[in-house]
C-alpha cells in the first residue's frame, strides 16, 4: 500500500479509536485529575494508584535525541505485552506532564504514533499497564535546544 493512502487510513482509524476510548471506561473519565497533575508521579498516582514501575523492555518508546521542533516532537509508543490494558505518555518537563493515555480494547494493535509538545529538555516516559495491573516503563531523554550553530 502507498504510504500516502496508509496514512489517510490511519487518520480514519484514529477517529474510530478515539470514539471507542470515550465510550469505554477511560483514565480521562475516571481520573480527571491525572491530566491536571503538575508532576509525572502525581499523574501516575492518580491514574494507576501507584508510582511503582518496572523498567524492562516491555514498553517501547521511539523519539529523537534532539527535537527538530519542540512544538511537535514525533513519538511512537508500543508494547510487546499481550493483553496490555493501557498505555500513558508522560512528559516530565511540561506543566501538565500526562500528555496522552490509550485504552487498549481487545484486538487493538498496541502501537501508536503522535506528536507531542515539549516545553524544555527532559524525560519522556511511556507507562504500560499489563493484564495483571503491573506497570512497565520506558524512559527517553529528548533535548529541546534554543538554537544551534552547526557547521
Amino acid at each position: 500500500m502507498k504510504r500516502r493512502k496508509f496514512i489517510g487510513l490511519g487518520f480514519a482509524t484514529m477517529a474510530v479509536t478515539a470514539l471507542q476510548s470515550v465510550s469505554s471506561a477511560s483514565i480521562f473519565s475516571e481520573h480527571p485529575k491525572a491530566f491536571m497533575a503538575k508532576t509525572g508521579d502525581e499523574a501516575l498516582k492518580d491514574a494507576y494508584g501507584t508510582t511503582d514501575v518496572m523498567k524492562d523492555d516491555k514498553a517501547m518508546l521511539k523519539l529523537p535525541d534532539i527535537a527538530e521542533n519542540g512544538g511537535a516532537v514525533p513519538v511512537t509508543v508500543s508494547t510487546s505485552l499481550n493483553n496490555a490494558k493501557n498505555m500513558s505518555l508522560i512528559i516530565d518537563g511540561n506543566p501538565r506532564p500526562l500528555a496522552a493515555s490509550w485504552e487498549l480494547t481487545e484486538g487493538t494493535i498496541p502501537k501508536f504514533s503522535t506528536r507531542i509538545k515539549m516545553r524544555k529538555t527532559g524525560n519522556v516516559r511511556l507507562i504500560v499497564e499489563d493484564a495483571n495491573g503491573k506497570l512497565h516503563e520506558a524512559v527517553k531523554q529528548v533535548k529541546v535546544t534554543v538554537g544551534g550553530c552547526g557547521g
Partner: protein
Amino acid sequence: MSSLNRREFLYMMSVLGASSLYAKSHQKLFDVKNVDSYYKIENFGNARFLHMTDCHAQLMPVHFREPSVNLGLYSNYGKPPHIVGEHFLKYYGIKEGSRAAFSMTCINYAENAKRFHRVGGFAHIKTLTDHLRGSFGKNKTLFLDGGDTWQGSATSLYTRGKDMVEALNILGVDVCTGHWEFTYKEKEILANIKALKADFVAQNVTVKDEALMDGAHAYNEDTGRAFRPYVMKKMGDHMVAVIGQAFPYTTIANPQRFIPDWSFGINPDEMQELVDEVRAKEKPDAVVVISHNGYDVDKKMAAVVSGIDFIFGGHTHDAVPEAVPVKNSKGVTHVINSGSNGKFIGVLDMDIKDKKVRDFRFTLMPVFSDLLPEDTQMKKHIDSVRAPFIEKLTKPLATTDNLLYRRGNFNGTFDQIICDALREVKGADISMSPGFRWGTSVLPGEAITFDDLMNHTSMTYPETYTRDVKGADLHNILEDVADNLFNKDPFLQQGGDMVRTGGLSYTIDPSKDIGKRITNLELSSGEKIDANRIYKLAGWSTVGSASTGEPVWETVEKYLADHKHIKNLKLETPDIIGVKDNPGIQRSLYPGKA
C-alpha cells in the same frame, strides 16, 4: 592520464619530510625514497575509494589553518581527532616544519604557509584524483564526496550551488551526500541533484507525513525516505554498497524554512535495518557509508550499528591520517575523515575476497597546489564561474598584520573581526557569531579580499540583527551551544564549535553538565554580567526566522573600509578549566588561561 611528470614527482618526494607510522597506511607515503611513489602510491588490493569532504565550495586553492583547540572529553579524551598541534606531531611521528606538519597542524602556520603555499583548489584536485584513478584502474575506483560542497564561497551562493555541481561533474565524483546543500530551497536542491551526475544518497532524510499528504515527492513513499538511501556500485569484479548519511541535525543547526517538508535524524535503528536488508538482498562484497555525522558521532554509530566495513565521515573537518577501528557486536567498522576545504583526498585501497574486506591501506593525501599542475578543463570552468564577479571578488578590503583564521573550539581571529565589526557598526554591547568550522585563512601581510570575507560569511541566511537580551539569556545561549559541542553523548553533539563572542568574556569548564559549564560572564570593561539587566546584542545567521538587517558581509566590509589595516587584534577567548594536560589544546597558542 596524469599531467604529473617524473620530475614533478621527484620534487614532491624530496620536499615531503616525515615518516609514515600509521597502521595500514600505504607504503612510503611521506618518506619517499623512490621516484615512483608519492602521489603515485603503491597500489594495494582490488578496489580503491577516493574520499573528499567539506570542501565548502573552495574552487580556488586556499590557506586553512587546522585548529589549536579541538578538545576531546570522556571516552574521546586524547583520541583522534582531539589531538592538535605539537601533540599531533608527536602522536603521528611527523617532523615539525615538514609539508605533512604544515597540512595537518597549526604549528608555525603562517611561516610554513609562505614556504609551502596554498593547498587544495579544484583544478589541482582534478589532476590528483585523475592520477589516483588512472594509476589504479578507473573501473575499480570509486570517488565519494561527503557534502558541504555547494556552500562556502561567493560564487556558490551567487549560482545557488550550481558552480559546484558542475565542478563535481567534471571531477567525476560517483556518490554524494549532504548538509549545507540543504540550505538552499527545496526546489533548487532537487534541481541540483538532477543536474549532478553522481548519485545523491541519504538514508536519514524523510518526508514529513503531512507533506506526503500534500503530495510532496518522496524517493520511496513506503519508507518515507526523501532520497535514495544507498546505491550499488561495481568495482572491478566486486559489488559494493554505498549508503548515505546526511547531517542528522540539519533542521536544528540550520533553518527549517528552506526545506519545510523534510525531517532529519541520526536514525541508527533504520541504518541497522538498511544494512541488514542490503546485505541480505544485494549480497554486496563490502558495505561503506558516506557520512556527514561528524567524527565522534560516526564512532558511536560504528559501535551501535554492525555490518558496515568503512564509514567515510565528514562534517567536523578533521584531518585524521589513519582509519580508526571501532568494535561492534558483529565485528569492526573503520572510521575515516578526510579533512576539509579541498586540502586532502583520502585514499582507501581494499583487498576484497569471498565477500569480505580482507585487508586495506589508507592514506590521507594532502593536495599541494604548488606541486600539482592545474587541470585545464577544471581551470576553464573555475575561470568562467568567477569571471562575471572577478573585480568584486579580488578587491582588497583591508590589509592585516595578524594571521586570520576561524577553525578551533573558540574564537578565531577572523571571527574576532566579524564580532568587532558587529559591535562597532551596530553600536552593540555584545556580539555573537556562529561557531562554524568553515572559513579559510589569510596570512599576515596579505590583503583581505572580498573573496576571503565571503569564505567566512557566504550563506543563504546571512542577515544581521540587534536585539535586547537579558543577562540570564546570554548565559543560556552560551550553555546551550556549549552543550551541543561538549555533551557526554556524541549523539547529542551537533558538530559546530562554540559560538564566538565579542565584548563578552567568560570561563568554561567543558566537562560539566549543561547549565554549569559557563561562569564569570563579564563585559570587556570587566563589569560582571547582571542576570536581570538588558544588553544590546548584535549578531547574524538566525536559524529560527529571517532577521531584517543587512547581510553580515556588508557590516564587515564597512568595518574594514573604516579601519583599512588590521593589527594587534585582541582575541577574546574564554578561560578554560580542566584542560591543562588535554592534547586537544596547543596551550602555547592559546591567549586565555587554560
